């Protein structure tokens, strides 16, 4: 897929006095382990270093995108709520895990994974107070996402977030009805947790060169939501589908990124070497195009039907060369 008529990376908006670099806030180059800090997008009233740009982004969104944000905000009012007084006992966390995953799929989730909530998957100063994350992935409509970076793709992104949050809200309600606390997280109420580290540990997929996740089933063409709970569940393991082998040599996202924001090599970020996208270059273009999404759509893994075959081939090749 080629990007749909991408505008040049020049901007008719800017700061007289730019905020502190988003890369510094994100901990680029930091050798010590530390928790993530909020830099952009937070709906809980915390001061954001890049707030002016965030507000500008909200206000230049087309109505066709904003209406999904409003609908999502409305449905996420039920993200938390009262818990049934009678608690259903759990003797077999593995069986309960299978039951919850089946329920999540029945409610509309494409992929479901379970992982403990660890401190490095929560923002600095935040403690969600629940110990297990149920990660949910829902695919986006590839026919609509082919229009990235045009606003039509942004509408599909928000539509998918809306569907994902609906699944999370309903799943959380069902768990609370079992007598266990549960809270749904989706866009735009995801202010405590980092979805990607949780989803990677829950076995949904791997981190790609473009800083987004890649999974076997949908490539990068999906969105995440989560339910945090204290319901005892068996955790999943991270998966190796061959993404690191491909990203080490593939340059599609690097070459197709108009502002050249994607690093070719893994970077040291808060004590961990991983794929990273230059915030200060990416976000202005993201704002200009109200959501961009070029990198996730040009990714070879996002081509429908390619992921399983590519993964099988890579793992087989690795097996024969080992």
């Amino acid at each position, binding site marked *: 897929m080629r990007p749909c008529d991408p505008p040049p990376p020049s901007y008719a*908006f800017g700061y007289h006095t730019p905020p502190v670099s988003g890369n510094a806030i994100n901990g680029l180059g930091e050798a010590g382990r530390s928790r993530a800090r909020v830099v952009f997008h937070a709906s809980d009233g915390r001061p954001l270093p890049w707030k002016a740009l965030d507000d500008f982004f909200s*206000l230049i969104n087309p109505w066709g995108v904003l209406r999904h944000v*409003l609908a999502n*905000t*409305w449905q996420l*009012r039920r993200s938390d709520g009262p818990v049934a007084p009678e608690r259903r006992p759990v003797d077999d966390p593995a069986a309960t895990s299978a039951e919850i995953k089946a329920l999540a799929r029945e409610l509309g989730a494409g992929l479901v994974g379970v992982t403990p909530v660890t401190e490095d998957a929560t923002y600095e100063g935040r403690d969600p107070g629940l110990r297990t994350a149920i990660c949910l992935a829902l695919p986006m409509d590839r026919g609509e996402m082919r229009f990235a970076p045009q606003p039509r793709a942004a509408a599909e992104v928000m539509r998918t977030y809306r569907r994902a949050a609906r699944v999370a809200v309903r799943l959380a309600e069902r768990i609370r009805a079992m007598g266990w606390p549960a809270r749904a997280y989706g866009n735009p109420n995801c202010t405590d947790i980092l979805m990607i580290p949780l989803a990677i540990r829950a076995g949904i997929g791997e981190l790609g060169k473009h800083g987004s996740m890649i999974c076997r089933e949908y490539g990068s063409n999906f969105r995440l939501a989560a339910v945090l709970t204290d319901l005892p569940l068996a955790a999943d393991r991270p998966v190796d589908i061959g993404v690191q082998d491909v990203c080490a040599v593939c340059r599609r996202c690097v070459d197709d990124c108009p502002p050249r924001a994607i690093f070719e090599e893994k970077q040291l970020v808060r004590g961990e070497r991983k794929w990273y996208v230059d915030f200060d*270059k990416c976000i202005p273009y993201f704002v200009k195009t109200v959501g961009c999404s070029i990198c996730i759509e040009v990714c070879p893994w996002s081509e429908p039907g390619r992921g399983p075959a590519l993964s099988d081939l890579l793992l087989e090749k690795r097996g024969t060369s080992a």
Partner: protein
Amino acid sequence: MRTLDSRGGQTLGRDLRLLGRMALMVVGYWTVGSRLRRAYRRCQARGEVLWLDEGGTTRHRDQPLAR
């Protein structure tokens, strides 16, 4: 399975407060937002920069957010 969140009463106040905030968002989008979008389109057309941290515009330059 009936969920507990379908109970009324205490949730009504919460829902009304949220509806109020959302109404403010919509009003802001169509008032402040309309003015901002017009100003932004004007800057785009003239090759100027809409400064986010204070009023006024100047000549267009590439990568205005770069430090």
